[in-house]
């Protein structure tokens, strides 16, 4: 877009934006870096390599990964159904997709815990029929994170599916391709980058998620204790250095993973000829 020098208000708008950004976001976030600089590297390593902490990282990242993949599969199906098919009540279902965005995480947490606990209506059913225990296990964390992650996938895939040029399908069909081949060779490659974006958003959100998880997780050390909870535990023990070291490590790992995912997306996009 061309620059417009005659528009008024550049200086006040930008100054306010920058001052507010610096005060609210940048200075507070920088405390994390400065605080961890006070630690020497050996101390830092000692904190981070603690077995319980490593276990919590494993729990957080593995559950988020599994949950985001599951959310990816179901989110894609939901987006497909919402865009391609017509049935009564579709608009209502479409609106409900955003519930995990709108519902406070604490509410989601207590409700999910109630549903999936051994005496809850789904928890008992799963226990009786499949012998599966959901609440107070890592599986419970996965369930909560699927709940949180699903709208990320649906809302990134849906618009791309809507914009998808369906004449490509008709072209493929006219060239003799079967429906399954069309999906595999024409539709999916075009939707895949968006799906990957949705999954990575769900993953990133899942790693940091706290409210919806802690009620259902059971928070057993080494088994179902997530990183954010460990940060809070450290804080409650006034172990600021420990909390900071864990938080910084988590931020760095998250950013590195996001970077990798972005590269993967770039690659997927290139392969399907988008930008």
């Amino acid at each position, binding site marked *: 877009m061309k620059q417009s020098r005659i*528009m*008024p208000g550049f200086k006040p708008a930008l100054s306010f934006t920058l001052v507010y950004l610096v005060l609210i*976001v940048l200075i*507070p976030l920088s405390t994390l870096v400065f605080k961890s600089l006070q630690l020497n590297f050996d101390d830092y390593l000692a904190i981070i390599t603690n077995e319980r902490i490593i276990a919590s990282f494993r729990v957080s990242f593995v559950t988020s990964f599994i949950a985001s993949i599951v959310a990816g599969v179901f989110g894609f199906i939901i987006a497909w159904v919402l865009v391609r098919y017509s049935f009564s009540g579709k608009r209502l279902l479409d609106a409900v997709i955003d519930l995990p965005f709108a519902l406070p*995480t604490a509410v989601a*947490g207590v*409700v999910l815990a109630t549903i999936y606990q051994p005496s809850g209506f789904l928890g008992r059913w799963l226990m009786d029929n499949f012998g599966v225990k959901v609440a107070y296990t890592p599986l419970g964390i996965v369930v909560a994170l699927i709940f949180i992650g699903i709208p990320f996938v649906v809302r990134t895939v849906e618009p791309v599916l809507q914009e998808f040029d369906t004449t490509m399908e*008709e072209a493929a069909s006219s060239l003799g391709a079967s429906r399954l081949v069309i999906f595999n060779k024409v539709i999916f490659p075009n939707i895949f980058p968006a799906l990957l974006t949705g999954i990575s958003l769900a993953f990133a959100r899942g790693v940091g998620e706290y409210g919806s998880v802690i009620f259902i997780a059971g928070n057993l050390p080494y088994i179902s204790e997530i990183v954010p909870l460990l940060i809070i535990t450290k804080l409650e023990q006034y172990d*600021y250095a420990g909390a900071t070291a864990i938080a910084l490590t988590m*931020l760095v790992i998250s950013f590195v993973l996001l970077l990798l995912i972005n590269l993967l997306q770039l690659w997927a996009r290139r392969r399907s000829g988008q930008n």
Partner: protein
Amino acid sequence: MHTLVDAHGQASRSALNDPKWVRVTLTSIAVGFIVLFLCAPLVLVLYQAFSKGLDAYIHALSDPDALAAVRLTLLVAVATVPLNTVFGIAAAWAITRFDFRGKSLLTTLIDLPFSVSPVISGLIFVLMFGAQGWFGEWLLAHDTKVIFATPGIILATIFITFPFVARELIPLMQEMGFEEEEAALSLGASGWKTFFLVTLPNIKWALLYGVLLCNARAMGEFGAVSVVSGHIRGLTNTLPLHIEVSYNEYDVIGAFASASILAGLAIVTLILKSFLEWKQGKG
């Protein structure tokens, strides 16, 4: 949007038709998932809240701690939402109406709070204002409390909801361009008049939408607030924290009564959101 389906629900373009069994299977999976995974929790909140009858529900909500939590939650929203709204408008104006160096960096930084875990968002304010924090001693000397007090809760909430309004406005204003604003200026309108008479009417639905999301998150934030609040009953507990405390004390009615208020807020948010999307779609 391509219309693939005619008025009778029949796909009108045969090449785009999935076989019937595929359609039925996928629709069942989608509907089943949404109902079981998303709708059921919502229903359960109300079921649990009213499981001991209306009187117990009202009694739970008229508990002084619950009322204090409602008051604090409203206070936090009132302090947070206007500030972030003004910020969102200013940021969108600067980013979409002007070219300057570092613009894409600024756009990225605005989204930063979304990629930070809520717990870490709380932690950074403890590191700043807590007893061992940067300003800890100074605050102590001046007998002011930020952490384990309302200011800390508000700060953490502002951080968490920081990008909401800006994110809604930036793409819209980018797409709008500024020909209409140039037209207003060329007709002699001042900057403020141009904004209020031309820009604002064009962005009002998106702005409202952003404010709505910002408000929903401000009222419902749990992780960040949980870190800075200290869980002092009747004093620094917001509604989500009150739910946690009640739930952990096996006060099911108390927890779900409070949860029902926030669930109600979520439903209202979703309805308004659908309405605003419909409005915006109509132009």
